């Protein structure tokens, strides 16, 4: 990026400590079951596990064979079986089937279930119901946090979003609280905690209780401040197309656990390769936060530099050549490979995006964000649906329309829903029902037009009745008074100003200068004001549950006070991370993002389809 980091930017704490801790714990757990054993792993735990241990670690602790949990009869012949799973009832039921089948066959083995990050009572109830309680031992592996990079930590719990926000099940609140507690005991004590959202509040409470119950050793804080934020505070941002390199790579190739698989179209060979994408990759590290339009320029400049570096070897004598080979060549080669890889990836992104009218799509999104030419947007979406262009993409646009417009007019809602069902199948009735429940895609109720009125009135009259009135309405309308928020926080820069993406002036650059992500803007404002004072209107529009608490008195203005842990409950996008990195550079902070999972529009919406459960 063009601007250099502030010199006094504080150092990030070493998060790899988290990996070492969970690795040791896993080894301990495996040793609780001495002797050779086969290990069954939940498929969604495989990548996270890969980040902290490898096969030889497992083999060293007498794991014989590894299998994926597939909800089918097993073929293992080992007399000890260990299951490493997420606490899900259906998986436990399958294990009960395995045990009962063994019993019926007169086969005796030892079984152990290791639940991660914790066990649930409901899972143990299944063991009891199925008559295998006691035949199976259980344990917990407190694998709460996986550092994906030096400033990103993931709980790797994508189901957090659906369970908490759609089903209203608070089973993960304690988990989030424990994760925070772990960070607090390793890198705390925290001096300030800010937050917004119901789940954030509950997480804070859970964390606080755990701190009270545990003993706190006095130590030197490495992380000073914490910000908790619920995903449903801002649905607009994750519904937008990502145009920053890392986000774009995630939208197109899907980054899984910090690793991406580039297919033959990128590798230009017949095989795919998996690449870790993090700050260790020097080329990636320089372009990850860049708007895609800058990436080409950067890559070609890089290529030229590389050429120059290689050219140096011409005219070298033997001694010089020797030094060159031993000192520089390896680095250059590494860079060369990475460079070719990212060039090919960019090329592939360009091809894909030009094919699907990406430009028109972006234009529609920008219009929706601006509240401009809504009719045209609707007919664009309609056409998208009629032509059966990607089911998720159509849904995304519909939700973006609803969230920014505070619901669809009844006539539009009826017609778009009918067309959607005709194009993508009637079973999406269930999807629509989920989206309505979550407030992502709703029909404007006749009463709701009042909320617009009422928000104007609210500015004029500021007495208690107005507040009461507001509460009544906001519970009805639930979320998003996006237009009012956007105005209040200046989320959409004036369109007559030039926006130079090469020299971004604010976080809007991550959306081509069209929109500052609401989530990050709130964080910025609260940090700047050291609390919520002056943001009353904003929190009211978001529907509250904000808090700011001071804990341990910060001894001095130490560096730790400028390290801010932002915890997204329900997932965050790479674009938001990029925006926070930008903010950090501008203000001399460093952000560490903790998220229940990395999300994007597709993941968010796929979680709400009704094809699982």
């Amino acid at each position, binding site marked *: 990026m063009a601007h250099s980091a502030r010199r006094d930017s504080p150092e990030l704490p070493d998060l790899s400590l988290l990996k070492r801790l969970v690795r040791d714990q896993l080894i301990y757990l495996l040793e609780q079951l001495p002797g050779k054993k086969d290990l069954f792993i939940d498929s969604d735990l495989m990548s996270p596990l890969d980040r902290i241990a490898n096969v030889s670690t497992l083999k060293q602790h007498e794991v014989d064979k*590894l*299998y*994926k949990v597939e909800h089918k009869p097993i073929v293992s012949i080992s007399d000890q079986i260990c299951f490493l799973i997420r606490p899900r009832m259906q998986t436990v039921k399958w294990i009960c089937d395995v045990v009962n089948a063994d019993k*019926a066959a007169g086969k005796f083995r030892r079984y152990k279930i290791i639940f991660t990050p914790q066990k649930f*009572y409901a899972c143990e109830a299944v063991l009891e119901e199925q008559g295998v309680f006691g035949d199976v031992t259980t344990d917990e592996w407190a694998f709460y946090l996986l550092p994906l990079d030096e400033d990103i930590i993931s709980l790797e719990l994508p189901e957090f979003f659906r369970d908490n926000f759609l089903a209203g099940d608070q089973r*993960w609140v304690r988990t989030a609280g424990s994760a925070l507690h772990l960070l607090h005991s390793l890198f705390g004590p925290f001096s300030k905690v800010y937050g917004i959202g119901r789940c954030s509040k509950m997480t804070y409470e859970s964390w606080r209780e755990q701190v009270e119950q545990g003993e706190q050793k006095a130590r030197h804080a490495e992380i000073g401040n914490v910000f908790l934020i619920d995903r449903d505070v801002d649905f607009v941002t994750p519904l937008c197309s990502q145009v920053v390199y890392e986000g774009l790579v995630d939208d197109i190739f899907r980054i899984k656990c910090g690793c991406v698989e580039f297919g033959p179209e990128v590798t230009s060979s017949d095989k795919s390769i998996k690449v870790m994408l993090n700050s260790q990759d020097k080329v990636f590290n320089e372009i990850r936060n860049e708007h895609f339009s800058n990436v080409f320029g950067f890559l070609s400049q890089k290529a030229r530099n590389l050429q120059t570096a290689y050219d140096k070897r011409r005219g070298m004598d033997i001694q010089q050549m020797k030094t060159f080979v031993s000192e520089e060549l390896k680095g250059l080669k590494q860079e060369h490979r990475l460079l070719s890889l990212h060039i090919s990836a960019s090329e592939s992104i*360009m091809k894909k995006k030009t094919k699907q009218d990406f430009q028109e799509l972006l*234009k529609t999104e920008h219009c929706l964000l601006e509240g401009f030419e809504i009719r045209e947007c609707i007919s664009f979406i309609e056409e998208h649906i*009629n032509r059966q262009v990607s089911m998720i993409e159509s849904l995304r646009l519909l939700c973006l329309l609803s969230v920014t417009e505070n619901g669809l007019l009844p006539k539009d809602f009826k017609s778009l829903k009918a067309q959607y069902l*005709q194009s993508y199948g009637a079973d999406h009735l269930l999807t629509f029902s989920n989206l309505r429940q979550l407030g992502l895609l709703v029909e404007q109720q006749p009463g709701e037009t009042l909320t617009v009125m009422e928000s104007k009135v609210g500015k004029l009259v500021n007495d208690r009745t107005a507040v009461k009135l507001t509460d009544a309405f906001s519970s009805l309308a639930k979320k998003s008074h996006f237009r009012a928020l956007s105005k209040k926080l200046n989320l959409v820069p004036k369109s007559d100003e030039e926006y130079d993406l090469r020299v971004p002036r604010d976080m809007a650059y991550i959306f081509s200068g069209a929109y500052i992500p609401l989530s990050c803007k709130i964080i910025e404002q609260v940090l700047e004001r050291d609390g919520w004072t002056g943001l009353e209107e904003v929190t009211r529009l978001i529907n509250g549950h904000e808090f700011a608490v001071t804990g341990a008195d910060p001894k001095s203005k130490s560096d730790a006070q400028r390290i801010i842990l932002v915890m997204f409950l329900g997932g965050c996008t790479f674009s938001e991370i990029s925006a926070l990195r930008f903010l950090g550079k501008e203000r001399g902070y460093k952000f560490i993002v903790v998220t229940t999972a990395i999300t994007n529009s597709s993941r968010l919406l796929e979680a709400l389809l009704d094809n699982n459960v």
Partner: protein
Amino acid sequence: MMKSKADEEDYWNSSKYNAFTFDDADDELSALKETKKAVNSIGPLLAEDGEEDWERVSWSGEPVGSISWSVKEMAASNQRADREPAFPKISTETPSLGKSQSGISLSSLFKGETVIRSLLGDPSLRLYTPELRKPKSEYKDLVSDWSAEETVQRLQQGKGVTLEKFRSLQDKLLLLDLAVAAHDGNAITAVLIYLKRTLCKEVLFRELESRQTALRHFIHYLTENREQRLLLELLRALGRTEEAALLQYKDYKNIADENKRRDFLKSCLSLQFGGEDGNHVQDHYTLLERQIIIEAADRKAEREGKLEVFQKFPRKASILNMPLITTLYYCCFYHYNEPEQPAQRPKQYFTTALAARAKLKNWTDVDAMFNSRNWLGFSKKKSPLSFQRVVDILQKNSAPTRVLQEYVGLVSDAELRIGLAQKHKCHDIVINTYRDMKDRQQLAEYRKKVERGSAEERKIDELLSNQQIRWKN
């Protein structure tokens, strides 16, 4: 977005967002290709031992030694074993005990057991009980007389509890309310499981009605535990009939046989859906009913090989359970000229039919779709869809330039027309449009893009030297 088409170029070229358009792709892409070439050509040095610092990866791209890789290997080696009968039959063999007990170990409890077991000489005697490992204090915990507060706290910490002592309704509800107050979903569900076992449905449902958080947990628990019947009862008892209806409707997914599925959908029609959902389910039913008829007839026709279209374009899949628009596309593809045609042709129909006929490269049908005669009998091309979109659909179905040209020419906005014409190499349209716009500069510029000595070049030269045109520049 018909109206704004004209502004589109403007938008991208003048607004703040212009810094980035994917339509500049051609230029960017070629620049990128250059860079790529440059990078690839750097130093033959690399070709030699290029593999060394890459991670070793297997054929599937998984790093060798990674857990995902190992699991896949295992799955592959087990493929044959996979086909063995579901759960293995009773074997008379006694399982051999794990022999190797070596290795570093923090706990030696199990070793002890093995010894005992071999001493007893009866491997089937499973002496180990996990509880043995628990410290004594934990044992005490289990029998202790915990208060409701303590019980909930222990649930939160994942420790063992006994709930049986909470027998009065009051005690049970106190427990539930405390769990809710603790915001711990695990504890809430734990109490609910106990209440479900020890309270009759009527009382449980009644009490849950005023406890929304607990209710949502209960609904989620029943959903995950697949207790459909109880869930339906609950929803009905709460008067949430619309949700109950959807839940019941959802069951159609578990019915594979199409006739049974159709009958099931029919039975759903009497359910109390909310809003328009009843109509949507009715449509779903009607659609499947039709699909069953079409599928039977077409399968027969295909087998008998009487219809040419089925041989030329074999069906890729059955039409059963496809969405309405897919079914429409299918019908426009295989049954276009059959007598039963819809009288009204909304935009949705038009779009789909156009795509289907274009896919078949039946340009006559395509052409006919746009024909309309005015009252004087002149034929004029009309479309409910913007011609830009039409071009797009045709081009995606690889229509020849000759066909494309006709529709590109019908795009009303000049700028847009030029853009499309350039993209699809319809030189005549570009040239004529510049001529009509009297834009000499652009025309001269375009001359560079056409082939040397071609008819197009000659045409441009003629125009440029034509004295009668009043060029604007």
